């Protein structure tokens, strides 16, 4: 408890430092008066401009010293008022803009993280399953057949629509051959060798794939996914439209979220795989296997939970990378979220907006990591002491 409080105090101190740094940087490096009024800010001769300058100074407190302005801004900020924008009329106020833009970005990032976990957990488990050893689902059981059929259908459909029907037919015959090889694996040595060889190749392929996802920069991935799935295949809409209905908008967010999710999923998969392999060496797994618990149940129910530590840690850290990714992805797909808002505001030197967004993002990031810290004790009772 005391440790948690200490960390909380640290978080508050950290956020104060972040806000002070951003505030000072923007007021010292930029020229707020110029950003509000434009060229007339430097005009000291025309009485009309002087009056305007005085009015703007009073409205934005620019005549007050920097520390006082900071304290004023901070006081307003913690009460939910993020000030007025540096535009000639200051409309809409920053709080209104954030209220409009933030939910979209949160949905996008939430979708991305959920997708990343949904991809990473089965992927990580299947790539670690080999180290458990032993076979308990016979090739004829539905536990093998149903996932196999699903996989085969999905891959064939993908190959057929991306590379033409010839490749589709080749894929389909390949899967039928593989199924036959599984059927005769116990009696025919050549079939056994084929199945083993395929498994080995697939695990190599899976690690190469995850490495590829990690190395693909998000903007390049965005362009590639957009080209293949939106432009060529037409499976996804080309643009985001804020006036569409709820489900249409969610569908429009699918491809951007996938762009953000794929690199994350590869990172999670690698961590999960390493941790799972370590967990699978432990005695309680051997115990469960000895009792006759099925491989699948051991992996999902016994081994998964204690293997989630690294994934959860990186889940929190990844949220920061996700914000950077959201910036790029929102700009590319034309989603009016806080990512596009901050890019626009920085280009127009609309500092109150930038400051507000930096603060929201930093707060979200440190709070999320604080929560992740608390989550450890939920995952593993041994940490509670």
């Amino acid at each position: 408890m005391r440790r948690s409080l200490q960390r909380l105090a640290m978080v508050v101190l950290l956020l104060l430092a972040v806000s002070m740094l951003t505030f000072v940087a923007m007021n010292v490096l930029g020229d707020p008066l110029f950003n509000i009024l434009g060229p007339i800010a430097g005009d000291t001769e025309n009485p009309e401009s002087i009056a305007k300058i005085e009015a703007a100074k009073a409205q934005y407190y620019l005549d007050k010293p920097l520390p006082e302005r900071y304290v004023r801004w901070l006081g307003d900020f913690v009460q939910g008022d993020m000030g007025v924008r540096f535009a000639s009329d200051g409309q809409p106020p920053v709080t209104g803009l954030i209220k409009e833009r933030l939910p979209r970005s949160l949905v996008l990032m939430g979708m991305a993280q959920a997708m990343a976990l949904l991809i990473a957990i089965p992927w990580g488990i299947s790539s670690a399953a080999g180290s458990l050893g032993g076979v308990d689902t016979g090739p004829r059981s539905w536990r093998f057949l149903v996932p196999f059929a699903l996989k085969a259908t999905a891959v064939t459909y993908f190959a057929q629509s991306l590379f033409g029907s010839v490749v589709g037919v080749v894929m389909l015959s390949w899967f039928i051959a593989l199924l036959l090889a599984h059927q005769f694996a116990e009696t025919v040595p050549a079939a056994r060798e084929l199945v083993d060889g395929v498994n080995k190749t697939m695990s190599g392929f899976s690690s190469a794939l995850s490495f590829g996802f990690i190395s693909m920069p998000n903007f390049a991935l965005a362009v590639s996914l957009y080209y293949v799935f939106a432009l060529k295949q037409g499976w996804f809409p080309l643009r985001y439209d804020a006036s569409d209905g709820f489900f249409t908008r969610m569908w429009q967010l699918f491809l951007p979220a996938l762009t953000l999710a794929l690199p994350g999923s590869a990172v999670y998969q690698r961590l999960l795989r390493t941790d799972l392999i370590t967990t699978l060496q432990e005695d309680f797994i051997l115990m469960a296997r000895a009792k006759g618990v099925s491989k699948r149940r051991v992996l999902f129910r016994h081994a998964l939970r204690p293997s989630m530590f690294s994934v959860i840690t990186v889940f929190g850290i990844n949220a920061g990378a996700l914000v950077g990714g959201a910036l790029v992805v929102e700009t590319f797909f034309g989603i009016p979220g806080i990512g596009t808002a901050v890019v626009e505001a920085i280009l127009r030197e609309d500092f109150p907006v930038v400051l507000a967004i930096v603060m929201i993002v930093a707060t979200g990031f440190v709070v999320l990591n604080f929560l992740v810290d608390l989550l450890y004790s939920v995952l593993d009772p041994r940490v509670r002491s």
Partner: protein
Amino acid sequence: MSQDVSTGGVIEAIEPEGAQAGIVKKTLGPGFWLAVGWIVLIVLLAVLAPVLPLKDPNANFIDIQGKGRPPYGPSGDHWLGSDQDARDMLSRTIYGARVSLVVGFSAVAFGFTIGGTIGLVSGFVRGMFDKITSFIMLVLLSFPALILAILITSLMERSLLTIALTLGILSVAPVGRLARSASLVFSEREFVLAARTMGAKPSHIMLRELLPNVLIPMSALALLGTAVAIVAEGGLAFLGLSVEKGSTWGKLILTGAQTRQLEEAPWIAFVPITALFLTVMALNFAGDRLREYFDVRELAL
């Protein structure tokens, strides 16, 4: 290996990798050298670009009689096609590598000099200095990196120097954190204690005893960091915030990423994407192999 086959099997079953670790010498593997080869190739191409027999990257090779309106597809004349202004994609990509690589390498060099020094000293000295620098690093780390980068680049003119410097500043905190933790670990070791007892000066211990040891895990981080910096520059360029003059991979991808360009001439985007992807993958892979080779745990995150 005069072992009975069955015993070998049991040992392997108990300790699948540990049993062999003592016998088999760790190697970096052919993949590592392949990755290094690609990096060397790209660096050589970028350095030698002006003397190589390449087409002028900014010249328009419009050929109305022969092929009609640009962009032209890949052909014997333009190996990787041309962009919408009939400029040669191959030479543009190679010239683009110059900026991307310079930014990547110099950002990492800056981050390592500053962050590495701070981390090394604070891990060794500890006390107040360590507390203050650790807090500053924590503050820097709680900014999303790309937002900080566009913040700095938007407030200053966007020259090659400022972009490289910005990304360098961003890499100070992560590098410093690793250098500090490595320095903390090694400061506890016997050889440092021995040096202290023999009356070595702190500066001598840091330079001669700590630095060589800390440099080992850092070498892996340098490769990974270069990849991150190159990607970050690409991201900035993609937002229209990278260097104003000259082409970089990010800028090339941006010009090819417009819907019209993608429909008519996908190679404009995919040539630089492929170059960027392969380079980043090579850097990541080489860094990852080095990390495994030296068995550095804390880099895994």
